[in-house]
């Protein structure tokens, strides 16, 4: 297909998405919806293509080839794993059959629990421990005062922000939990500040993409 035709399709699709800004007008709204439906259709197709070509097909080829093995157990075990997975997936399809609910629920439980196990280990090793170590690590005493102060502020800030996650019913005799309330207020301010900065970063990122799209529209229109 000619390069100009492809650029024209991109141009029209970009305009169709931007038609959302014109509001809920009778004909215009169909343009935006059509673009979204096209997007869902192509995304589903690409997901299917990637899932088949990058996951299922290589697995199937590995199972067919006795020279390759996923684990130390050998090719026979690979075949067993692959066919068990096929059986599990097939049994998941029986979910609407209420009489077999016990079986599909057990398979679903195994799948969900495996996902949960990966999430727990990932959260523990990938986020919790590295962040705790990074937060608690203070520079050596021979570092300059500014660096030391900044590290202390980040440590105290993280602790107060974590403290603000702790929910507590407000005391009716105001001031009884003054210190805790003060910590929570500081913590909440830090959380709001962080969320504001994340919001601003998202605006900046989308602004960059917006300028690129507008430049494309002008470039093609010229």
């Amino acid at each position, binding site marked *: 297909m000619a390069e100009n035709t492809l650029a024209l399709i*991109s141009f029209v699709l*970009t305009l169709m998405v931007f038609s959302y800004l014109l509001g809920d007008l009778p004909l215009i709204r169909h343009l935006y919806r059509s673009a979204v439906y096209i997007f869902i259709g192509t995304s589903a197709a690409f997901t299917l293509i990637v899932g088949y070509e990058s996951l299922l097909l290589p697995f199937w080829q590995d199972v067919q080839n006795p020279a390759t093995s996923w684990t130390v157990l050998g090719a026979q075990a690979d075949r067993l794993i692959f066919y*068990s*997975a096929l059986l599990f997936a097939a049994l998941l399809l029986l979910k609407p059959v209420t009489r077999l609910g016990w079986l599909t*629920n057990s398979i679903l439980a195994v799948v969900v629990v495996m996902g949960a196990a990966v999430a727990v280990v990932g959260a523990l090793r990938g986020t919790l421990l590295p962040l705790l170590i990074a937060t608690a690590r203070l520079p050596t005493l021979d570092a300059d005062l500014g660096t030391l102060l900044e590290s202390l502020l980040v440590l105290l*800030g993280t602790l107060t922000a974590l403290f603000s996650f702790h929910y507590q019913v407000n005391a009716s005799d105001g001031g009884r939990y003054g210190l805790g309330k003060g910590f929570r207020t500081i913590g909440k301010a830090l959380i709001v*500040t*962080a969320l504001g900065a994340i919001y601003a970063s998202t605006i900046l990122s989308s602004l960059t993409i917006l300028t690129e799209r507008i430049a494309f529209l002008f470039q093609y229109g010229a």
Partner: protein
Amino acid sequence: MNRRPRVGSSLATVSGFLVGITAVLSLLLGDNLALFGVGEGADALAQSFALPGDVLLRLLVIVLALSIVFGIANLLILHTRRVAGGRPMSGVLLASFAGTIGWHITQRGDLALLETIQLPIESALAALLCVTLVAGGARILTRRSDSWGFLFVLVVVVVLLGSLPLPELAPIAAVSDWLLRIPVQAGARAILLGIALGSIVVGVRALLGQDRSLRG
């Protein structure tokens, strides 16, 4: 009321618990060679700890890949029914799906369709996000005019102005730098720690069979 224990529910809980505990222990201990000392025996022990995790992960990946295929099949069936029910917009989805698959089969390896359709729509949608985010930020001040709403918008404005490369805005850029280095870092770390703790709690609930959806 005398309730009979349900065999199916117990089976789901027990199988989930056994698989979950095996996977967690295997994933946590399998990679950690230092736990098993040094030498060939230690390597073999570490490998045998890692094995159940490897097998279960491989099983999970294949089941999930097939689940994606089933999900896409479900999407197509749903939209075929919608077309039959007189909703032509679903036909656009089916046509784009069929067109993409057809293109991939006939033009193997050609990414033109991805660059012509997928990328422009994705980036135009991401660009629209800018407009909706700015509108949302402005709405915060009208709908939630308290000190937290004001602080949120103030931080957004300071960070946005601080990113501009104008010498007149150097003091704001310095404030923005300080904000990002200390308060934002502290807040973001607390949010990440909160998410990690929440994930662990939800994961452990699922491992122990406390999740209602797993009990059948």
